[in-house]
């Protein structure tokens, strides 16, 4: 049984193979085949995740570190840095795996119909599979570096998927690619944060592994488990497993790292705490615990004779470890802000709606954006030990929740509203992480995945119906038109008016035209707003209960802030969601297209129904104790009260479940219902859009300024444009101008080219021709001149020669006789 964990590498491998096949062979295969490959890969991934879940269930939720075969051994080994391709199979990662692959599979099925007829059909499925592979790698990594590989990979896939329709005509393609670029850049800023955090982690701890082998994550839980446990849920674990543990204790296939999770209760658990481990043998989180427990000058044995204390040496500077932790968490927060769309990097998420709806709903609702939250949950030890950092995290999360909710109030695009709603809900999750409610954050993540996906797909269905109505209206009976976002604007150029099927002002009264969509949408809205007994109620309430406990009972400021402001954000959520319902489904149709809209086909409505049902039931995986009959006993479907929390307990060191606060729950629900009521008063009854086409809040003078800020998306994008993009563009243009005009034109043309020519002509004419040739030719001329002069002595006449001869003779004779003549 323990060997089952060895299939963990398949969870990355299967979607990778599927992506590879669709990349290489896809264009040549039929659409059906491509979709089958993609969906099968995704389904198999889900199967592996389920198997891993079973494995863990049979293994007392003990984590396992799996070394993938064929790449056994270290990936990077530089000095003391050792990073290996290790996968971690523990409850947290399996939770993520399970839900991500489940949603992913559903999206694959949805896309099979949605993307029908697209030119790059196979590419899309390849991207989806690739995304799934990277996501799986992200959540199953055992160290920060491998997680970062998955982190960047999902960022890449998000870019590819957002900009999938980059080749649309008339500017739509540019819109898509700009959105993709925006997402990439925002993510990149976040990646920078994660990288700096990783460097700091390495400097502080000397390793980047989460947990090393034989390390116990949650000592309390394990000890409770070993002792038989007073918790009834644990006893159930024990009861079911006692009989089946006889054959445990054998070594794993690769004997180097014995899976420590292969231990049974009490006698079979090898270690119940980490005291036997030296610091060197622990991952970053274990080291943090120990180091933070040290006093000012205390040192503990690192292993191999080295002693370490609270002081961390970075170059020539030394810091206390608490300061390091703060820095680490803040840089990780930067990463989360990029990936999970927090302030200040959330601006990419609304624009990401330019991508195909499956991509939007999968990635930007359910999976990718949760990666940041996952990382935070994984780093719970850091947050626990650093009050300052967790306070800031809480603030960021709360602020995001408020900002997102506020902007959603003023949007008219149906998908924009949902996008900002996602931002807001992510803020909820990050705030929960900030106050220490890790299981609550995970719970909310899961439930949010379901109902947000439901809402997105519902909006897709609405848009689809609007387009159908539009065609019907204009006698265009082309079938097979799916909503492809803004593309319809361009393809319908022959229409006199611009028709945006996503604009809620054009909708209205669709509840009768698209009932299934309507009712599933309503369920999703209730779930999102946190209305009992839908999923959002349980998860949002968990967070608020935690905030209550942290803020009011424990008295920490962050909890108090979180409590108050999250309640406000929840109210806003309910308000804008009901506004949307009123505008879209209630009232009268405000456009001809809405009048003629019709329900989508079963391929689109079926997943809606499934998701709606799931949105109802998924909330019961983590029912808090003390609810009583209000949970209808449905928690027993999933193994009892807070079974998710129990599941996650062994993976989260600083595990904490709040007590159920009934007052809080009731109050929250009342606030939500009230908000919905107010919304129905403002927007209901045909008042959704007044005569001038304005929103009621916009028309009202007292609320108009606030509303316009919300409509303008709080000028976030404008500010970024002004502060970052324009200066950057100007600098780039300036440099380009410099390069072209000065370097190219002046330097190259004038100085280099002309200078070289001048030098060449100088050397060739005056120097070479003048001096050198002159010298050489001059020599020749000199010789010729002299010869010309001298040759005149050669007259050719014998007698002249004879005269010369005789003259010479006389001269010689005279010279020779001179002494004699004298003497």
């Amino acid at each position, binding site marked *: 049984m323990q060997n089952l964990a060895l299939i963990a590498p398949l969870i990355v491998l299967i979607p990778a193979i599927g992506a590879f096949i669709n990349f290489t062979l896809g264009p040549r295969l039929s659409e059906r085949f491509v979709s089958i490959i993609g969906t099968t890969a995704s389904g198999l991934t889900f199967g592996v995740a389920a198997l891993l879940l079973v494995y863990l269930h049979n293994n007392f939720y003990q984590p396992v570190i799996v070394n993938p075969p064929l790449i056994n051994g270290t990936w990077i080994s530089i000095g003391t840095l050792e990073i290996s391709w290790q996968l971690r199979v523990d409850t947290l990662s399996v939770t993520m795996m399970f839900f991500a692959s489940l949603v992913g599979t559903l999206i694959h099925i949805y896309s099979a119909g949605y993307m029908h007829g697209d030119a790059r059909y196979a590419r899309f499925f390849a991207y989806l599979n690739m995304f799934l592979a990277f996501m799986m790698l992200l959540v199953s990594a055992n160290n920060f570096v491998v997680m970062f590989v998955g982190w960047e990979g999902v960022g890449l896939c998000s870019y590819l998927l957002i900009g999938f329709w980059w080749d649309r005509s008339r500017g739509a393609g540019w819109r898509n690619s700009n959105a993709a670029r925006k997402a990439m850049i925002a993510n990149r800023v976040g990646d920078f944060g994660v990288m700096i955090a990783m460097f700091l982690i390495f400097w502080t701890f000397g390793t980047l592994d989460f947990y090393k082998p034989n390390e116990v994550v949650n000592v309390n839980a394990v000890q409770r488990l070993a002792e038989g446990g007073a918790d009834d849920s644990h006893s159930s674990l024990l009861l079911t497993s006692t009989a089946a543990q006889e054959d445990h204790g054998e070594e794993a296939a690769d004997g180097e790292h014995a899976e420590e999770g292969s231990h049974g209760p009490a006698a079979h658990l090898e270690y119940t705490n980490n005291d036997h481990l030296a610091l060197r043998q622990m991952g970053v989180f274990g080291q943090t615990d120990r180091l933070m427990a040290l006093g000012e000058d205390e040192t503990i044995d690192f292993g191999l004779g080295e002693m370490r204390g609270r002081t961390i040496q970075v170059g020539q500077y030394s810091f206390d470890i608490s300061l390091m932790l703060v820095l680490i968490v803040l840089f990780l927060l930067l990463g989360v802000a990029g990936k999970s769309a927090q302030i200040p990097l959330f601006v990419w998420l609304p624009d990401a709606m330019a991508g195909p709806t499956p991509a939007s709903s999968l990635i930007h609702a359910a999976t990718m954006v949760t990666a940041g939250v996952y990382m935070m949950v994984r780093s719970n030890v850091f947050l626990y030990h650093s009050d300052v950092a967790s306070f800031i995290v809480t603030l960021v999360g709360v602020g995001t929740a408020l900002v997102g909710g506020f902007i959603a109030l003023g949007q008219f695009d149906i998908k924009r509203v949902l996008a900002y709603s996602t931002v807001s809900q992510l803020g909820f999750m990050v705030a929960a992480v900030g106050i220490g409610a890790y299981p609550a954050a995970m719970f909310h993540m899961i439930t949010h995945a379901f109902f947000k996906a439901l809402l997105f797909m519902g909006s897709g269905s609405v848009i689809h119906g609007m387009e159908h109505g539009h065609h019907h209206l204009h006698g265009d009976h082309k079938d097979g038109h799916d909503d492809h976002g803004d593309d319809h604007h361009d393809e319908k150029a022959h229409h006199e008016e611009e028709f945006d099927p996503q604009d809620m002002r054009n909708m209205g009264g669709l509840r009768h035209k698209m009932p299934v969509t309507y009712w599933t949408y309503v369920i999703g809205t209730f779930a999102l707003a946190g209305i009992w007994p839908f999923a959002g109620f349980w998860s949002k309430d968990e967070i608020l209960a935690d905030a209550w406990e942290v803020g009011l009972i424990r008295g920490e400021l962050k909890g108090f802030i979180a409590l108050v402001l999250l309640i406000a954000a929840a109210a806003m959520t309910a308000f804008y969601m009901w506004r949307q319902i009123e505008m879209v489904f209630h009232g009268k149709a405000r456009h001809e297209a809405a009048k003629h809209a019709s329900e989508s086909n079963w391929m689109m409505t079926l997943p809606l129904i499934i998701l709606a049902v799931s949105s109802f039931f998924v909330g019961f995986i983590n029912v808090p104790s003390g609810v009583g009959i209000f949970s209808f006993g449905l928690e027993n479907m999933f193994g009892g009260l807070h079974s998710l929390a129990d599941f996650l307990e062994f993976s989260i060191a600083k595990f904490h479940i709040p007590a159920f606060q009934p007052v809080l729950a009731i109050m929250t629900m009342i606030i939500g219902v009230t908000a919905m009521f107010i919304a129905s008063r403002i927007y209901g009854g045909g008042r959704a859009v007044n005569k001038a086409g304005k929103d009621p809040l916009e028309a009202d003078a007292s609320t108009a300024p606030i509303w316009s800020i919300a409509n303008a998306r709080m000028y976030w994008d404008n500010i970024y444009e002004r502060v970052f993009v324009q200066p950057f563009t100007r600098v780039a243009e300036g440099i380009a101008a410099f390069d072209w005009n000065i370097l190219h034109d002046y330097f190259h043309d004038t100085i280099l080219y002309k200078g070289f020519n001048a030098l060449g002509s100088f050397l060739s004419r005056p120097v070479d021709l003048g001096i050198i040739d002159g010298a050489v030719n001059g020599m020749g001329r000199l010789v010729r001149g002299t010869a010309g002069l001298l040759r005149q002595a050669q007259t050719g*006449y014998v*007698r*002249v020669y004879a*005269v010369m001869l*005789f*003259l010479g*003779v*006389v001269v010689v*004779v*005279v010279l020779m*006789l001179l002494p*004699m*003549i*004298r*003497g």
Partner: protein
Amino acid sequence: MEFLLFAGIGSLAIIAAVAMLISDNAVYSALFLIVNFLCVAFLYLMLEAPFLAMVQIAVYAGAIMVLFLFVIMLLGAEKTASKGNRSFRWLPGIAMGLALAFVFSVGAAISSGNVDGQEPPPQDAFVRFVHAAPVRADIPEGASEAQLAIAERRFDVLVNGTLAVSGLEFNDQRGVNERYLRLSPGEYTLTFSPAGTEVPFKTLALTLDSRDSTTVILHGESDAGLTVTALDDDLGIPQSDRAHVAVFNALDGQDEVRLINLVSPLVDDWRQVIPVSEPVAYGTRSAAIPVDPSIAGSLVVIEGGSETAVLEGNFRPVLVRFNNIPGLSLDRQQSFLYILTGQRALNGGLEPLLITREDPGALAYGDPAAVGIRLFTEYVLPVQLVALLLLAAMIGVIVLTLRKDIEPKPSRLMRRKVSRPLTAVISTQTGSDLGPSVPQIEAPKSASGGQPEPAGD
């Protein structure tokens, strides 16, 4: 008187030269030049160069001028030339000037210099060595090499320290001339040392002048008595056609010797003896005595004595009879030096021996024989080279005057068709171009070599 002759002949030569120069007729000029040559030949005779005079006449006047005349006739150059160009008007003036300059300078040199007093450059002197000391009778045993050499009378001659003659031995060659050792004039130290060693045994200081001819004779019987004597070969004999004889007494033990003519016919029971030479003391030489070749057979060297004793018939025993010397002939006009020495007889005694040396002496100056001898001994190489030159000149002349274009006498047949070259004919008939390899037949032109227009001076 001689000078008058010279002046006359000289003037004649000058006049002939001038006439040659100003004559219009080339043949006249040649004849005048011949006259000049004859004058020069006569002057050669006056200068005691008979050979050259004859050569001058034979070659110059006889051959060269004849050649000149031939060519003049051939070219028809005897006539006066046309006016010719007058472009060289300045030339006679300059020539006159240069000639006068030459004459004046040489004349000044002659008048201020001392032509007659010029010393000829020194010529080499000749030295020859004659070993006239007989070998000792007893040769010691076990003596050193030097002593052995001395005993065997083997000597090396070192001239100023360097070995000149090695292994000079007592030889009894007769009538053979030796090569002379040529030495430049100066002072020399001749050292006789035992052969193989360089230990001086006997030394002689010698001063050599230019063209001296010296004979160095080693004579003596005993070791201590070995003497080296140098004789000047110039016997001081004038030029005559008679042989001369001189005797050197190198016979140790004979104080005097005498050369007499022993005449055979008996008169009054007296042998007619005619003393030829004076008594010659040991180690000296007699004067040169002219000797009639007819008395060659009756020359005898006797021991010295007074004349009276000889006349009285009371003469000492004959030492050497000349007719015993084979190969000796007094026919030639030569001078002989006879060296009287002795050789060891079997009984240990000393028998007289005559070593003959021809006197190189002063060869007759200007003697054709002398010139011939010198030509073919010292100047052989130049003679051969000149002969080669003559040969080359002959060939050159033939080549130069060869006429390549010996065209056959144009036949009448060809004369008709001469207007059309053969090449064209062939080419039109065969259609092929034979090219320029076929020589063109030109119309005859100046077959006689050309009768040039009368050209002269």
